């Protein structure tokens, strides 16, 4: 693989893409279901039209890997409530702006006068807190292990600055415990591991998946060639019936990840229970604040029950890879990026939004022009009924 890698002249070279696609297609003789757990993988795959180059034997399903998608509706409503309070300045990544809540989206609240700032870096929240001491500045932290060290650094810096008008809504999630939980119940044939989570936690952090659960796993980057190299790795593992963890993104991912980032995560957070949409409360799949940093943490006043009409969307099944977006009766009909009913339709890398913007070539786009609400046929229970049922 390494020689092959070095011979690359381009991560978007059509010739190389075709070569890799041919190799994957040759190796995939039977039907295989590969799961990827990264919104940018979904996005890149669909945006570049990779599906049209690969055999129909291979289906790439999206698992719980878009932070907006996996955020619990109760947490989303909580954020909206905070944004609605006059003394608060809510600082968020753009991803959350269009998420539907009981009171409209953050974008709509912003247009009605709520103080919501979209930032490209969480450190900006500290600048705002320093510059505007009369405001209560609240950082909404979503994301996975990739974003965790950055949020940790922000918190440590807030601590050093002795900020008193800064708080955090800590919704960061730990992907690997959630995957172990999910795969112990239902498993794909292989897993395309998210390259930027692996950048932080290292290749070895994913080794438990092949070792304990026998799932072939390959770490992949996000260019078309990166993704195809990962898929080729998986195709080889499946062919030789040898489940292991491989690294198809060696230019940034190392065996142990980034030691400084990992120890900062360790010093700032401890594993804590977390609510995941579709999975319920998972005991160690979130982060809690350690020691003195706890003063920055906001806790919902009470256990918030979702106010949004949750029965309206199948996001909780989509993020488990159990339903394609197209299988949801509301997809493209009542639920669109302009008027999303669930979080998967929100950010462009959300599973449903990526399928909306970048549909399959043969997908029917005919939308019945109906005045009436689509009747929702609820699918059978999530799995064998063992998943915690939160609501």
């Amino acid at each position, binding site marked *: 693989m390494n020689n092959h890698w070095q011979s690359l002249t381009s991560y978007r070279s059509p010739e190389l893409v075709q070569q890799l696609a041919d190799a994957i297609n040759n190796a995939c003789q039977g039907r295989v279901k590969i799961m990827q757990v990264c919104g940018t993988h979904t996005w890149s795959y669909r*945006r570049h039209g990779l599906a049209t180059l690969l055999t129909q034997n291979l289906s790439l399903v999206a698992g719980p890997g878009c932070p907006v998608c996996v955020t619990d509706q109760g947490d989303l409503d909580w954020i909206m409530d905070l944004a609605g309070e006059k003394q608060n300045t809510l600082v968020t990544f753009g991803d959350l702006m269009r998420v539907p809540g009981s009171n409209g989206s953050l974008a709509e609240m912003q*247009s009605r006068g709520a103080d919501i700032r979209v930032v490209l870096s969480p450190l900006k929240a500290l600048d705002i807190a320093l510059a505007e001491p009369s405001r209560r500045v609240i950082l909404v932290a979503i994301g996975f292990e990739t974003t965790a060290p950055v949020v940790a650094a922000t918190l440590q810096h807030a601590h050093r600055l002795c900020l008193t008008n800064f708080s955090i809504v800590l919704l960061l999630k730990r992907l690997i415990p959630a995957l172990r939980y999910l795969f112990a119940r239902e498993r794909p044939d292989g897993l395309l591991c998210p390259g930027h989570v692996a950048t932080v936690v290292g290749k070895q952090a994913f080794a438990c998946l092949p070792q304990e659960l026998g799932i072939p796993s390959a770490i992949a980057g996000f260019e078309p060639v990166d993704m195809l190299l990962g898929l080729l790795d998986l195709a080889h593992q499946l062919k030789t019936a040898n489940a292991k963890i491989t690294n198809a993104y060696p230019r940034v991912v190392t065996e142990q990840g980034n030691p400084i980032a990992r120890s900062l995560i360790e010093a700032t957070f401890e594993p804590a229970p977390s609510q995941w949409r579709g999975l319920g409360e998972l005991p160690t799949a979130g982060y809690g604040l350690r020691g003195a940093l706890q003063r920055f943490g906001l806790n919902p006043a009470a256990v918030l029950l979702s106010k949004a009409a949750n029965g309206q969307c199948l996001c909780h099944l989509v993020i488990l890879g159990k339903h394609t977006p197209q299988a949801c009766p509301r997809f493209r009909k009542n639920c669109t990026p302009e008027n999303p009913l669930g979080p998967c339709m929100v950010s*462009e*890398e959300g599973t449903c939004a990526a399928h909306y913007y970048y*549909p399959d070539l043969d997908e029917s786009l005919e939308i019945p022009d109906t005045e009436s609400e689509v009747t929702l046929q609820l699918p059978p229970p999530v799995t064998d009924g063992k998943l915690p049922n939160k609501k």
Partner: protein
Amino acid sequence: MSIEFIQLAHGSGGSATTKLLEQIFLPRFRDIGLQPENDAALLPIGNGVTLAFTIDGFVVEPPFFPGSDLGSLSVNGTINDLAVMGARPLYLACGFVISVGVSSTMLSQIATSMQEAAAASNVQIVAGDTKVVESRGTTPQIQVTTSGIGIVEAIEPWHTPRVRPGDQLILSGTIGEHTLAVMGARHSWFQHDPIASDCASLYPMLVPLHPIPDIHWVRDITRGGLGGVLNELAHATGYGIELDEEKIPISSLVRGWCEILGYDPLYLANEGKALLAVDRAAASHTLSELGKTVLGRHASLIGEISSDEQPVVILNTSIGGRRLVMAPAGELFPRIC
């Protein structure tokens, strides 16, 4: 679903905007003359003379951004709506809705820009109106509406009924600058490497095309971006469209910002770019005429109208894949994920 209340999405230029027009305005105005498919209405007044007439409203936050401002935007936007109908823009009228608290300096600057943009295009601003309203608590705003009238000079009409399978699609230049200029100014992004809005009058670029009979259709690519205009064209004609991603001109800075912010350049707005559908036989002549102009120097043949009767836009991606290009939906926000 019928619209209950107006939401931000109804102004985004995507399918919600279409829905708004279809539910509220088209049923009422179509019978009394509305020409919703054109950027400007074409009004024959006898003796072979046809007027082009249009109106457009402009709000932008912030009102000043690299390369342009609300003033020149409001003049050039209306000039362009006339110019893409093959008309020579002549007269503008303008209306201002100004909220309490707007500074006179700001208003003067905007008026000066309008004056300069009009003079540059040899267009006169002949009528105007002002209204002052309460500020809604957010930043004081200025909203400018301009209406324009011009005389059609193109020897054949540039409109949808003339578009046929096999027509070549020509894009007049690089896409995406305007949205990124405004967003960059709004959020202070990448201030070392600002992107300037492409706001400009399209008229000088289009004049040399007036005598070419095989130009079938021209549209300026504003809100909703190239993806939006292509989908509108597919729906209006009933034909499919095939595009080559490789051929779509995008500046390296725009590509760079898009990679970092997670935007798709196909949905970014422009204020000085046109898309043309021309007969295959006239494609190279049209390209060379465009290439001689300042604004059209990056013009590129990006695809064609296919004989496929499914009105969808298919993109051949630069890595050799194929995918559909959907109409834009919703506002743009940067993403981290």
